[in-house]
């Protein structure tokens, strides 16, 4: 249910002008809520940024978020993170 919660919060933040990127671990749920920008993660529950101590991977996740924030044109733009 976190995915539902995160999506709802993202919408509220975007409403006041804050750009958001929402990671998703459960696309059925995230897509229902339809947050402004979504990065679908290939990991399981509890691990939105992947494996512990994977510095390179985690940094790449953040970098992808920045790219998505800059490049998305349409509300609801969804990318898939490639691990």
């Amino acid at each position, binding site marked *: 249910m976190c995915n539902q919660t995160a999506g709802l*919060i993202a919408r509220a933040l975007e409403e006041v002008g804050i750009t958001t990127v929402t990671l*998703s671990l459960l696309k059925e749920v995230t897509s229902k809520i339809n947050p402004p920008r979504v990065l679908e993660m290939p990991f399981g529950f509890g691990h939105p940024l992947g494996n512990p101590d994977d510095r390179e991977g985690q940094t790449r996740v953040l970098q992808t978020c920045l790219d998505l924030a800059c490049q998305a044109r349409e509300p609801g733009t969804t990318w898939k993170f490639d691990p």
Partner: protein
Amino acid sequence: MATLNDMEPASRRFIERYPFPDLGKPPIAPLKTQPEKARVALVTTAGLHLDTDRPFSSSFWLSDCSFRVIREADYFVDPGRLVVSHTSKEFDRSGIDRDINVVFPLPRLKEIADAGLVGSVAPRHLSFMGSLPRTGDLRKRTAPEAARILKDDDVDLAILTPV
């Protein structure tokens, strides 16, 4: 990527029985500045808070929509003070116990800020507790309140991490 089958029965039952109505197109606020100048905040639903803060309610059905503020300064002074109180049994905490970046990448964010990839790390970050069968309070009260806090801190970009 997880599926509905991976959810624990209580949460799954709520998601399936009470599917959220289609909310339609979301609002969209383009990034006002280049990433190298942007102030970035993290918002997680992992139920994190400082050990001196009130924990989130341990009864799933009470649907605690409140959030906690995690100041960047407080975190780095003593990362050990950050604890979890989350009702979901499916929240696999093995990752978070070893490396906070798995759910709340504040150290990683600081590194990329220091490297100049983003402008700055926001002074305040937020944690909600994501297992919410009822989202009324969230939609009407706590999420807008959270938005005001980040707005007050001139946050340009927020990254949201569910667990």
